[in-house]
């Protein structure tokens, strides 16, 4: 299969490969095996990763494979004068292609990085072809570049041949991101087919560092493939995830100022991959945007620091440190505000004061509701059987009676007074214990004055056992007995306290 691919490529190319293509057929069978293994690995990893990588990535990877195959086979190319033409052409082309690629997509840079690193490791896999690998990759790259534009990724591979060019590339994009982490991160976030960089890193992981694979395990739990993380990047990733979950420690950000871009996109990918965390996505996104701004600030601050080196730098540094700590504190507070906002019932307010207001009200109402529920769960089993008789009768009676208590706006501890006050009225309507109409009850609950009604109910009910719950409202065994005894219209001294 690979052989066919190779042949196709070569035929499609405009390059003078025809004589060489025949040449290729012979050495192919010998070297095809080891190339096939790599291609299988590449293809497998292609499958493992997101399908968005799809055809382009796969195609490019396969092109890689074919190029690999060709690399080994084209040993004879080194001597070929054609080769030099290609190299020169390619070298001339490479700087041109750089701005082209850098302009539209930052991802390409990462691709290049990935591939450059890949190429670094490549010699490990193909020790024989080290000299020829780089050079011989030129013609296929060049060829692919002409025939298939999307295969940007191949270019930087060839770019390694002139190592100086690669160095330039690296230095130029240093400020943007760090190597494969940025590339892989962008890959995931933008779903662009950075197939080759991934292929490269996959090759790397498979064939070189075992530590990387193990550290990739950490990345795996985030939904990334195991090939993703490099060593120091993994440390940073885990620290990043921790950071995103808790406080944002800027130290790591400061240490690598160039990682800002990767931070933000990483955060986004973290969102996508770890949606199960308690932190919701929108909070994450908000954090990410803050991350960006903060990271940018930190970066500028970090860059400022090494630049200034004099006596005055101490002051400015102290000021910067203060600013940083201030910013850190504010960010912590903002983070907590966001978390609080998540907890509150749907509120459109974004400004702090109204949010805090809402939080206060919400907490109060929650506390009230809980008290209600506690009373309800405590008293329900205590109801005595005869209460139902009183329900319809009390519907009318309670209405006007309920009004005073609603309007009284009394706090819970003052309920006993209220009960005393309503005893005479209610007793007048019905001699026995009162029962609240559930409808009334309902509205009262919504008015959040339920506590008074509840307490009233409890007061008239011969619930000696419930005194432990009633104590919440200041009911004690004494008061309960008082209520029970004072069902008859005998106003106590507390009578007229109803507002």
């Amino acid at each position, binding site marked *: 299969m690979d052989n066919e691919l190779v042949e196709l490529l070569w035929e499609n190319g405009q390059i003078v490969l025809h004589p060489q293509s025949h040449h290729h057929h012979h050495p192919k069978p010998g070297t095809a095996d080891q190339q096939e293994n790599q291609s299988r690995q590449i293809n497998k990893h292609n499958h493992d990763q997101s399908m968005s990588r799809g055809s382009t990535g796969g195609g490019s990877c396969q092109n890689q494979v074919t190029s690999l195959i060709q690399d080994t086979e084209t040993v004879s190319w080194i001597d070929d004068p054609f080769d030099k033409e290609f190299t020169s052409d390619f070298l001339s082309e490479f700087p041109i292609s750089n701005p082209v690629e850098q302009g539209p997509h930052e991802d390409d840079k990462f691709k290049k990085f990935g591939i450059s690193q890949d190429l670094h490791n490549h010699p490990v896999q193909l020790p024989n072809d080290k000299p020829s690998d780089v050079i011989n990759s030129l013609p296929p790259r060049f060829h692919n570049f002409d025939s298939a534009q999307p295969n940007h990724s191949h270019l930087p591979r060839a770019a390694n041949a002139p190592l100086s060019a690669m160095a330039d590339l690296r230095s130029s994009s240093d400020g943007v991101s760090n190597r494969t982490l940025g590339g892989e991160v962008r890959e995931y976030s933008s779903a662009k087919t950075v197939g080759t960089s991934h292929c490269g890193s996959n090759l790397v992981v498979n064939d070189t560092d075992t530590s990387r694979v193990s550290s990739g395990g950490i990345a795996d739990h985030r939904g990334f493939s195991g090939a993703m993380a490099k060593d120091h990047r993994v440390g940073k990733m885990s620290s990043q995830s921790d950071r995103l979950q808790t406080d944002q420690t800027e130290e790591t950000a400061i240490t690598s100022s160039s990682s800002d871009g990767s931070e933000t996109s990483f955060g986004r990918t973290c969102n996508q991959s770890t949606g199960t965390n308690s932190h919701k996505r929108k909070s994450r996104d908000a954090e990410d945007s803050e991350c960006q701004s903060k990271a940018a600030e930190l970066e500028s601050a970090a860059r400022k620091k090494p630049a200034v080196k004099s006596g005055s730098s101490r002051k400015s540094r102290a*000021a910067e440190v203060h600013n940083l700590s201030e910013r850190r504190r504010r960010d912590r*507070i903002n983070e*907590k505000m966001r978390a609080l906002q998540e907890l509150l019932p749907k509120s459109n307010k974004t*400004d702090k004061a109204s949010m805090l207001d809402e939080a*206060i009200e919400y907490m109060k109402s929650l506390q009230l509701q809980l008290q209600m529920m506690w009373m309800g769960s405590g008293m329900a089993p205590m109801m005595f059987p005869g209460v139902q008789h009183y329900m319809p009768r009390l519907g009318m009676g309670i209405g006007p009676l309920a009004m005073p208590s609603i309007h009284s706006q009394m706090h819970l501890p003052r309920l006993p007074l209220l009960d005393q006050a309503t005893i005479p009225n209610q007793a007048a309507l019905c001699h026995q214990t009162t029962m609240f109409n559930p409808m009334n009850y309902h509205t009262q609950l919504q008015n959040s004055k339920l506590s008074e009604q509840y307490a009233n109910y409890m007061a008239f009910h011969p619930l000696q056992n419930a005194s432990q719950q009633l104590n919440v409202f200041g009911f004690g065994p004494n008061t309960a007995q008082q209520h029970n005894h004072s069902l008859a219209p005998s106003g106590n001294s507390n009578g007229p306290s109803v507002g």
Partner: protein
Amino acid sequence: MSSRRSRSRQSGASRITDDQIADLVTKLQQLIPELRRRRSDKVSASKVLQETCNYIRSLHREVDDLSDRLSELLESTDSDSAQAAIIRSLLM
């Protein structure tokens, strides 16, 4: 200081002073049982906010627990009894 500058910029735009926010934070602190016992001066805003979040979460948990209990109670009683009506109104 740049922070002061930025703060003035903010208050000019939003009319919300820091004192206002501090006031609210104090109010919030007094609602939270844990922080009520502490002397209010020492507690930082971030701590208050953190405790608020925790407290609200615990309240939510409590509400859920009680709701479960109440619904169990509801099932155990006759549906037309008064207490069932009360429980239902509690559960809303």
